[in-house]
């Protein structure tokens, strides 16, 4: 899976699971945590999604609100662990 496909996959999941309002349009840079679209409790389900989908293990210390704050940030985080 290339980076663009990864972005698309994560973006679709975020929209499907966390964005209730059909009129809200998010981009790869839209803040997810600091904007309140994804709260700190829900972040855990996003983490599980990433770990399942990409067969990686992200340590709790790296699963920070900042690391999850946009699709681009998430892709960067996932890439770190895909390379390991």
């Amino acid at each position, binding site marked *: 899976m290339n980076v663009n496909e990864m972005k698309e996959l994560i973006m679709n999941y975020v929209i499907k699971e966390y964005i209730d309002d059909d009129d*809200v349009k998010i981009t790869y840079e839209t803040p997810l945590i600091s904007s309140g679209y994804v709260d700190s409790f829900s972040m855990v*389900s996003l983490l599980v999604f990433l770990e*399942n989908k990409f067969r990686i293990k992200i340590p709790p210390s790296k699963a920070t609100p*900042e690391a999850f704050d946009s699709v681009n940030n998430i892709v960067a985080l996932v890439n770190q662990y895909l390379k390991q």
Partner: protein
Amino acid sequence: MTLNPEHRSYEELSGNFTWAVAEKELDYKNGEVINIGWYCSDRICLKGNAAKVALIYEGFGGISRQFTYDDIRIAGNTIGTFLRGLGIIEGDRVCLFMDRIPELYLSFLGILKTGAIVQPLFSAFGEESLFVRLENAGTRAIITQKKHLQKVRKIRGKLPHLEYVIIVDEIKSADLAAGEVLFRLDNAAPVENFDICPTMAETPSVLHYTSGTTGQPKGVQHVHYSLISQYLTTKWVLDLRDDDIYWCTADPGWVTGTSYGIIGPWSLGVTQCVLDSGFSAQAWYRFAEKNRVTVWYSAPTAIRALMKAGNEIVKSFDLSSLRHLASVGEPLNSEAVIWSEKVFGKPFHDTFWQTETGSIMITNFPGMKIKPGSMGRTFPGITGTVLDPATFRPYPEHGRAGLIAFRPGWPAMMRAYWNNEEKYREKFVNGWYLSGDRASIDSEGYYWFIGRDDDVINTGGHLVSPFEVESALLEHPAVAESAVTSRPDEINMEVVKAFITLKPGHTPDPDLELDIMNFIRKRLSPLAMPQAVEFMDRLPKTRSGKIMRRVLHAKEWGEEIGDISTLEND
């Protein structure tokens, strides 16, 4: 209005204490009209503070607004007029289902001014959580935002009492369904004078929902007289003064967000600020610095999250304006107190109270000796004790672990569980209100928290009912049986964990685990979502078939399992 400028000792404040102290300061006399909406806005204006800033609001992306006390007075009148125009009358339940936008705070005043009962609900609630609370309360109107409308629409057909869905932000008229009404405060004609409902001390005011071990959530009904202890505890415990900038980080969907995020500070005429965006240490420190926050009331979960973000980030901000810090929601661990002394130069003061108590019961006063890890001492006028769980009588000696209990009679005590007299009565034994929490008291009268006396899960300061989660899990197509307990969590103290057996044809796998997590998150709330799911071949049960949650709880917490003689064998 002159607020308490000096810290008097605990003994001085407690000696000969009566709630008349607050009644006198609020110019209230027994038998007179008392309306929280009026006290929080009109009265402050009449005292000469109409132009003083009441609310500094900041939403995501730096959107900010300010409202003076005259602004919130007029907004309350305008919203009250609108509601009355719909036919809302005294005693009707009007739900607030919004993020922390200004309309939430202003509608709170407007509803109270009409004499209706405010029913605040956390906007992250899923449709099932929303439904059971609206159904139980027989809610007549709900005020919400377009972003939450889908959840309301999904359950609307099952709620015959719900006549009006009021949307406060942008939505095209053509998109409104029957019974949906658009109300834009900015577009409404400001109402200078409003005939405020002459509510009395025992008139119902606020209806907050809280979770118990069994059964559906209970509606905790408060009255306008709650103002008396909310006012005084805000003044003495949170130490608010005329020139303070106060920041309560709680959402008004929970009781802290109304008792101390609206009623307390505004009845004192203090400027408060609200940040409506997701959590990040950077954003919180920036907000405190920008607004020169002086008094900060937050929760241990948030404090631990700030600790996790590290000490270096704190140095990037000028937080010298902070004068007093307090905490509520769950036990404040001693490490957090010591950390705050190190990075802010002052400790967080722990406070203990509940949705049912309506105001602070046990606390560390400013100036009082703090024992890190202790909840502090009872507020003046509050008679507290620790009961022997076998006899429901107070222990005669110090240091014994038992049930925290209070003598009923403080002003903000709940007056009922909505439509549930039986559950309400169960909260009182031998003339004591049972808090459901356990603690010990030391020789100096300081309370030391031990834990819940039931299976309710306190996650991030919010109570989650294992029963509610277990019931919702059974609605998932793959789940045969479920048991829910807590497991330790570094930030939230504890989080929800689910143990599940599957129906034939389903096999455990990570995607199913995620599906179950998301199912609960959407139906109930993110707080109730199991942060871990463990698939089991069978759940531990008694021979009579009752699931033994305590066995699972003990396993998660590394505790002794205790008596398992009733455990079902193969």
